[in-house]
């Protein structure tokens, strides 16, 4: 259970998070969407402890985080860009993580089989394809069976088959009651995997609620159009942010 209140963060004069209030209950699968520069990555990094907030608080299972690090035992994180020490072998990286976390890697073999990584285990990481490296990242995130899973653009480098397997796996984790948080530019993916949406725009939460609610309220059938519609809506406050946001969104939609 993650509770965030009035979370603020600036990088120099640039305000990235302008007071975020958020509660992610246990077992919820949440998609975080928003244009580039909206603060998605900063929000996640702050929760993970990579970025230190300027104001506000993050509570984890009711306990305020203040330079704490043991809470990360409960988190698995799959980064967007997976780059590892070049000369390390896959098996060594896995062993290294096991030693570092000192937790039982109960899904190690299962994930390796699922992602067809067996043949890659003895290869140095530098020789791995981008997709295989992503799969290593996914394995590292999930093998310790943590209750909370973060995925940052997880399927970006994956081929359709792997992407499919990954989604299956995430769906299974969800069923098992894991809290799952995903950022993605691929709206259809979020529709498949999550039932809750947080829409960030210009450092603020524009929408936080159930996927169904969003679709109902907007009267759209697809998340993509619902988001696009929300950016056009008169609720928008700051004019320049609106322009920027729109620009970004349209770009993203093209990519998607």
């Amino acid at each position: 259970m993650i509770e965030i209140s009035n979370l603020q963060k600036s990088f120099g004069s640039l305000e990235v998070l302008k007071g975020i209030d958020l509660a992610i209950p246990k077992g919820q699968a949440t998609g975080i969407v928003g244009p580039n520069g909206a603060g998605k990555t900063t929000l996640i990094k702050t929760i993970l402890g990579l970025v230190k907030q300027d104001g506000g608080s993050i509570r984890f299972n009711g306990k305020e985080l203040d330079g704490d690090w043991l809470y990360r035992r409960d988190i698995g994180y799959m980064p967007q860009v997976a780059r590892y020490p070049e000369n390390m072998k896959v098996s060594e990286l896995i062993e290294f993580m096991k030693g570092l976390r000192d937790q039982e890697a109960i899904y190690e073999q299962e994930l390796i089989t699922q992602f067809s990584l067996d043949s890659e285990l003895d290869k140095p990481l530098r020789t791995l394809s981008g997709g295989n490296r992503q799969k290593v990242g996914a394995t590292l995130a999930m093998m310790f069976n943590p209750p909370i899973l973060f995925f940052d653009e997880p399927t970006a480098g994956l081929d359709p088959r792997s992407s499919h397997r990954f989604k299956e796996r995430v769906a299974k984790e969800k069923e098992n009651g894991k809290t799952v948080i995903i950022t993605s530019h691929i709206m259809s993916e979020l529709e498949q995997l999550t039932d809750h949406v947080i829409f960030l725009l210009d450092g603020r939460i524009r929408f936080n609620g159930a996927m169904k609610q969003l679709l109902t309220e907007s009267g759209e059938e697809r998340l993509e159009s619902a988001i696009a519609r929300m950016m056009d809506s008169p609720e928008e406050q700051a004019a320049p942010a609106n322009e920027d946001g729109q620009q970004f969104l349209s770009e993203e939609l093209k990519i998607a």
Partner: protein
Amino acid sequence: MKNLIHIIKNEWRTLLRGKWVIGYALIFLVLAESLLRFGGGGSETLLSLSSVMLLFVPLVSMIYGILYIYQSREFIELLLIQPVNRGVLYWGLFLGISTPLMAAFMVGTALPLAWHGILGVGAAESMLVLLLGGVLTLIFASLGFVLGLLFYEDRIKGFGFTIVIWLFLAVLYDGIVLMLIFSFGHYPLERFVIVVSMLNPIDLARIMVMLEFDISALMGYTGAVFRRFFGTAAGSLTAAGMLTLWLAAPMWWGLRVFKRKDF
């Protein structure tokens, strides 16, 4: 502690496999060997080695430190989200990469000295040169670390600063000191000159080499402050103390930056 050793071990393994560090050791091995072959005696070799060491060890170590940060950004971030204390992670990474570099210099240089018998005859001098090289490696690797963390996003700036800092400390600093000595020659300058030299770690290391090899010339100088400083244990002790401070300062700075940094 367990995690610290775990991280250090992992860095050692990857670095050794990278062969880069082994190449660095080989360079010093070949250098020391050829100096001993063609240069002749022990003091000559040790002084040539110390000149090369004073010039290149800071540069290589600093570039090595900053390069590590730049090349391992994603990996560092992956480690940061593991249940590991940032302080432990910092020391693990820093010691993990700097100690092999230090060892590479020391072993590469020591082996030829050993089989040519210099290590036995000039034990104190050899140890001094080896130790100073080791200490400079740590100082400048951690400076490189700090620069990498400070200019995390801007590599050009990071490398630029690295070169400028090296050029300043290795060459220009002494030129400025000489200019000051010339401009204020009619004032008593000894104390000032000693203090100023202590502020630059390369000069500090050089002064310690000088105390070992040029003490006879220094004793020819009439100034009372110099004589007291260089002629007694006070000089060596102060220089060693300052060098320890210099060793601690960038490491502590790096730790501070690392702990507070937004990745």
